[in-house]
């Protein structure tokens, strides 16, 4: 019986269609936001892959509904253009016309929250409007192709409706995605603008232009040309694969025996380690991967989990932003008077490498809001939902901020920023909107925030001292003016109080000589 379990095979598109809520399409408002976000992230990834400062144009236009149902939610046309790497005409249908179960067979950190890129966004549009979408793309020095297509949901295959070569050679690479969808922009608006604003913080090297349906334009200009270091690609760490992935790897590998399977597909595995792992799993070294039984695959999986001597995973796959760029982005979008970012050294949770970057900004254009102002990012994607469930929120709540010269984070013009980069961000739920309370991650966040907070305390102490000295000087001035006036009346001449005030100003570091000139005329 067990052998004969039959699974209904469904296409990935079909799967998505049936499970819209998993990917953030559960209602028209959320869907509108998710579509914008997925396409923008694709665009940013494309530009970063090319290694140029991204220029992203997004426009959402309302259009009239078509088809039998003339009533209902409005339809929109979304256009997202980027200056990214561009696609070969043959790659366009593959890249946009099929939903991959896992496009992340190799390990490298990129935005793509779901590994499904913008395809889901396009699919949603197709499902709600039954209209095709259009991709126009060119690689540097090549002509541009415009492909109008749909996704065949049952077969999980792209269906090209029209393909055109645009005249001329394109000097710069680009990609333009145009799609139609049914949604609710009015109610998604606030989240979308907030999303772009928060993105602009974490991608300070990108120009982002957004045109709303009613013609409003938001422009988030870049403030630097500098890009963060590109992450390296790397193999999976043996502890970082799950059973399903291991199974797939065994199926498609072209290695001939298990020893080379392990050394070739995993980082931190050499001959000796491979031998020890296989011994632990009870699998002969020269067994062909294709001949592994289900039980052996399970045994191998268990051996990989229980083996103690793997080196920690290679963090070079991670793409943190860097302290300088993080500060740059915060300064440009929020105009604080103080900002300090800290990048923690790479760390590991459950064999997943991660880096935590945190920052604290204070004052300037920031105002107290009565709530903790927390900006969260995972792999450069802003997280906008469920802030109070996030590990960062709990860490901030736990810290006694009075030690750092703040009454409470709610009542001060202070904002916190936490960026986690990882090949596997420890999201708590499928919605992928907040980070779970993983002790290793929490620890790094806390250590980072405390470093920033110490700098903030130094800054605040200096500032408050200066203010105090300034106030002290003002008080001296007021009282000595009274004294001068009274002595003028009693003694008949005005004593030169400026000498004393200059002394006080000197102590306060204020250059304010002659500041009391206005007083001398009336008294003499």
């Amino acid at each position, binding site marked *: 019986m067990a052998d004969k379990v039959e699974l209904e095979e469904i296409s990935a598109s079909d799967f998505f269609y049936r499970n819209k809520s998993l990917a953030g399409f559960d209602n028209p408002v959320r869907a509108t936001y998710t579509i914008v976000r997925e396409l923008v992230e694709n665009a940013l990834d494309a530009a970063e892959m090319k290694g140029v400062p991204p220029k992203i144009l997004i426009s959402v236009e309302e259009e009239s509904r078509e088809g039998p149902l003339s009533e209902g939610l409005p339809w929109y046309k979304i256009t997202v253009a980027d200056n990214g790497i561009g696609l070969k005409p043959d790659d366009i249908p593959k890249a946009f016309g099929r939903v991959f179960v896992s496009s992340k067979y190799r390990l490298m950190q990129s935005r793509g929250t779901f590994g499904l890129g913008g395809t889901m966004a396009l699919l949603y549009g197709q499902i709600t409007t039954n209209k095709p979408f259009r991709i126009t793309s060119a690689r540097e020095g090549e002509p541009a192709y415009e492909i109008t297509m749909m996704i065949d949901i049952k077969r999980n295959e792209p269906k090209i409706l029209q393909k055109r070569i645009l005249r001329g050679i394109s000097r710069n690479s680009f990609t333009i995605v145009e799609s139609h969808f049914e949604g609710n922009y009015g109610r998604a608006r606030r989240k979308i603008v907030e999303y772009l604003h928060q993105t602009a913080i974490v991608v300070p090297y990108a120009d982002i232009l957004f045109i709303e349906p009613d013609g409003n334009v938001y422009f988030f200009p870049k403030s630097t040309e500098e890009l963060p270091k590109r992450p390296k690609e790397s193999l999976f760490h043996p502890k970082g694969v799950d059973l399903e992935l291991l199974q797939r790897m065994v199926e498609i590998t072209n290695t001939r025996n298990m020893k080379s399977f392990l050394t070739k597909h995993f980082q931190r595995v050499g001959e000796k380690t491979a031998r020890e792992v296989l011994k632990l799993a009870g699998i002969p070294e020269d067994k062909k991967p294709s001949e592994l039984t289900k039980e052996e695959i399970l045994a191998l999986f268990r051996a990989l989990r229980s083996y103690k001597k793997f080196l920690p995973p290679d963090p070079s796959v991670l793409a943190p932003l860097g302290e300088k760029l993080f500060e740059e982005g915060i300064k440009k979008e929020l105009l604080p008077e103080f900002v300090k970012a800290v990048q923690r050294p790479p760390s590991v949770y459950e064999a997943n490498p991660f880096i935590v970057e945190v920052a604290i900004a204070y004052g300037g254009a920031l105002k107290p809001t009565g709530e903790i102002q927390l900006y969260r990012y995972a792999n450069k994607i802003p997280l906008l939902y469920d802030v109070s469930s996030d590990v960062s929120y709990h860490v901030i709540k736990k810290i006694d901020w009075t030690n750092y010269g703040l009454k409470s984070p709610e009542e001060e013009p202070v904002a916190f920023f936490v960026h986690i980069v990882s090949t596997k961000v420890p999201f708590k739920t499928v919605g992928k909107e907040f980070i779970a309370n993983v002790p290793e991650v929490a620890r790094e966040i806390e250590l980072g925030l405390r470093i920033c907070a110490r700098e903030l305390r130094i800054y605040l102490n200096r500032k408050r001292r200066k203010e105090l000295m300034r106030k002290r000087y003002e008080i001296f001035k007021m009282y000595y003016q009274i*004294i001068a006036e009274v002595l003028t009346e009693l003694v008949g001449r005005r*004593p030169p109080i400026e000498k004393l005030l200059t002394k006080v100003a000197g102590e306060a570091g204020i250059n304010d000589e002659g500041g009391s000139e206005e007083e001398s005329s009336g008294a003499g």
Partner: protein
Amino acid sequence: MKEEVRRRALELAKRIAEAIERGEFPEIEYPPNSQSNIEFLEDVGYVFKPKTYSRITGSRIKSLKTLAGLLYGISRALDHLENGLTMTKRDFYYVHKVEKLKGTLFPEDQRETDARIILMELVLGYPREAFSITSDPRGWIYGDIELIDKSGRLIRADQVGEMGYSVPPRPENIKFKRIGVKAVIAIEKVGPAKNMIELGIPEEKKIGIAILQGQASRSMRRFLRMLSDEGVPIAILTDLSPWSLRIAATVIYNSINSAHIPHLASPEARFIGILTRDVEEGFFKDYQFALEPLTPADLKAAQDNVYLPNLQNEFWQRENQWFLEKKKKAELEIFKAMSPTARKLKDLFVEYLRMKLDEHLGISI
């Protein structure tokens, strides 16, 4: 005196101006009226004996405000002095409630400017009356006393109105020409004192009546001291209450607040009543029903009295203990409760005074 005060004030101003001219932060030293500078001696009352000094310096913010306040206060006082104008403490408070002092010396309440007056007294070494800030001219003297006041007029204190001569703010200027009374009785309350006058007791019994109207004012205390210095026996007649103990003790010993002002105590004065034994076994023993209960404030005053330096001797403490135990008080108006007719009232007054003056001062009337 006016010239002397002026000279001292101007000297101080000049000293401060010179320090500023030298580029130094000005400093003033003065003896504060703190406990360490005040002694209490049973036979002279409070005495101001400076041992420690305080410093006001223009280089510290808190001190600087004191300095500016002091100078401002002095300048206003001198202005009044030179123009022959006086002001009350309340006036002095309002002198600070001016637009240009907002954010600096503009007072929060009168306590602030009252404290400034005391500082001025301590720094200049003169009572406030000397620099034109007068106390409420509260208090009258009635009886066969001839005096010459500041303006040089001859006044007989039983011929100037129903309550007698109103004691001026600065009684130092008064000279006694003739004193025809055997004793002066300082009475806390206006009502009973007026009754005695109205009943003709001062004329008949050759006594003077000083009407305190509550706590004796500085000018009244000064005036009583002057009488005492002239050899006039002073008797103090008050309610039997925790407050009245303080009134009597202040006349005899002066008070902590004005300890730095000399000649306010009259150690020769005698507290004649109402005493607890008058109520318990003496004159009023059949009238206990006319006693009043202590109010919470009265009781609090009695509890505080336990610690007042000038109430430490056995007599005061014994009297005070009675309040804490009985939680009652007797008011001078009790005479009214005892006398159905005016005739009877006069008899009771005379009887009581005769007995008390004899007992405490050896004077027969």
